[in-house]
């Protein structure tokens, strides 16, 4: 009984981790390719949530979770073209400052557009409730999120490892000078990666809007967890981020089971322990060039 219940907490943690993954993977990709720590990543997540709530009013939830990430990905083009592009070779402090500023500007813009009080969103009736597998219980809606995350994960992996696009991106991460010498311009690839990254963050926002509070500061809340996941996983490592996200979700679930008060602190303790043993993160050793 106790073991079964614990297993259920583990599975639930995996689902939550999958959700963190949507945000952390994009953050990690943009960082790996462009060397930019995108502090505005949470702002795109918040925009994804707000835009999806608006679209839901007119076209329903199904359209919202498709259209909202697309809309935000298009904003990502502008973001890369007019802001990020100027900072690839500049002092990284500048890109930190500019993305931090953008995060604050976006939060304020959301406040002006939609107001400071949270806006309301709900799960469509058909997706509510739990499904049972024996004594195991799963939220129907979270199972859907899990399926979407799995699909996105497979898609991104295939894109990076099975296409010529992915080969250039991976080469760009490892040896940008060599890629340039071959006459390949990395910039269009960077635009695509930023689109993909912020689009994934927006997808996370769209899916979480119905089950969490949609308010202007939601982006600032999520980015801390996303950073923890990326740091635990190891920089630039695809599977590192995946494992870290799932681990964070599971550790949190189990901690809450045994010691509820330590639930939120547990992921920071996890980060501390991982960095103590592996300063580069779980799978971070593959990009030694940057250490």
């Amino acid at each position, binding site marked *: 009984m106790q073991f079964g219940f614990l297993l259920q907490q583990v599975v639930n943690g995996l689902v939550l981790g999958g959700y963190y993954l949507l945000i952390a993977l994009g953050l990690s990709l943009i960082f790996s390719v462009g060397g930019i*720590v995108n502090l505005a990543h949470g702002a795109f997540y918040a925009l994804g949530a707000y835009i999806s709530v608006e679209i839901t009013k007119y076209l329903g939830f199904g359209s919202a979770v498709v259209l909202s990430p697309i809309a935000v990905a298009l904003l990502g083009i502008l973001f890369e073209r007019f802001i990020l592009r100027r900072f690839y070779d500049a002092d990284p402090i500048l890109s930190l400052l500019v993305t931090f500023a953008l995060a604050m500007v976006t939060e304020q813009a959301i406040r002006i557009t939609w107001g400071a009080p949270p806006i*309301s969103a709900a799960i469509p009736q058909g997706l509510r409730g739990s499904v049972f597998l024996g004594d195991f*219980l799963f939220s129907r809606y979270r199972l859907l999120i899990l399926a979407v995350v799995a699909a996105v994960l497979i898609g991104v992996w295939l894109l990076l490892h099975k296409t010529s696009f992915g080969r250039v991106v991976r080469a760009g991460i490892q040896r*940008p000078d060599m890629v340039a010498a071959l006459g390949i311009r990395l910039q269009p690839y960077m635009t695509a990666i930023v689109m993909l990254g912020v689009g994934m963050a927006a997808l996370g926002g769209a899916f979480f809007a119905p089950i*969490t509070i949609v308010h202007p500061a939601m982006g600032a809340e999520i980015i801390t967890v996303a950073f923890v996941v990326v740091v635990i996983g190891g920089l630039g490592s695809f599977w590192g981020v995946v494992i870290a996200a799932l681990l964070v979700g599971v550790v949190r679930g189990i901690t809450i089971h045994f010691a509820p008060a330590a639930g939120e602190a547990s992921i920071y303790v996890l980060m501390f322990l991982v960095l103590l043993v592996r300063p580069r993160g779980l799978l971070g050793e593959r990009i030694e060039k940057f250490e």
Partner: protein
Amino acid sequence: MTRYSRRTLLKAGAAFAGASVIGSPSTLSAQATRIKIGHLVPLTGFLGAIGSYAQLGVKMAAEEINASGGIMGKQIDLMSEDSVNPATASTKAQRMIEQDGAVLLFGEISSASSLTIMQVAERNKKVFFSTGARSDALRGKDCNRYSFHCDIPNTVMVNAVGTALKQKGMVKGKKFVTLTADYIFGHDLLKAAKAFFSANDATLIGDELIATDVTDFSPYLLKVRQAKPDVVCCNLAGNQVTNLVKQYAEFGFPYPLVGFNLNTGDAWAMGEGNLSGTWPTVWYHTLDNPASKAFVEAFSKKYGKPPENHAWIEYITLKMIAQAITETKSTESDALVAYFEKQTQFDIMKARKAYFRSWDHQLVQEAYPFTVKPKNEMKDKWDMLVLGEAVPAAGAELESIYPTKTQNPCNMKA
């Protein structure tokens, strides 16, 4: 592409992400012909959403007072800032008194921040009206001569909902699980809830203390299911209530969810069909009396949405303060304390008038339980609650639902 260590970059990034926003200092110049009043409410964090309503309410009250000639011919200078957290709240309160020349302070929703401002008030011998904090301890063992308490205390919220639940047969012999906010307010509410359960033959079979930064409740909900209670009781605060209710609806448990604390601003943020159960409130914009209706109309016209209960409480508090200064012709703390301790009656837009109890400085007033309106009866998205009968019932003593002297160990030093 870059020559900088990625690790350094990431560390700097994490530092930035963790940096909290601190409000800008007030730059008002000192003018003896104006009355400076300091106002603090949380605009960030889990109470920020309702705090923003509070700020709208106080702005409107100040504008109305100033438009009608001010207090004794002097205009109010309202300094309204984000209290952020208990430490920042007390720092700002101290600064408002020492540097900005505030004659008194009011505001706050967080019981933890209110407690630190109360200490500043006592040290500086300035009056502080704690408008939205509900912990019993603030007007109990932590009370002091300079602090007044406008919102209903936790015990009253428990009594308001408890009475309604008893009428529905949801208390006697039932098993409860509570989800409680892990800070002074939650601990205090849980204490009141436990007292209520044991006095009414209910058992508490599970209790979860939840940190105020938790946004995902799924692990707790799994524990709730394992306990298999008859009723689940929410003792959370601010937008945590919103999150819990949304996720509770997501999992679709058969156990009814009720709560001993809810602000209507948080209820409005929940989304269609998520909220059910019985909850307490101190005021709601559909209250049927002329003063309340006029206030709701003016507020809605000005801001394009109805006032939340914190907008109302800040509004009436500043009006009570203005009345006190006008009638005592003084902004001196001792004169004001004496004025309120006379148990002067105030119209606070409810059926019965309210007064500050002299021995614990609690604003004694009616409270209401409410349930949720079916969707097809809602006039607009704000019209989602049905108020129950005011508690205490008409004819009963107002003080009957408040903690008595023996239950409320307030001992004010002279």
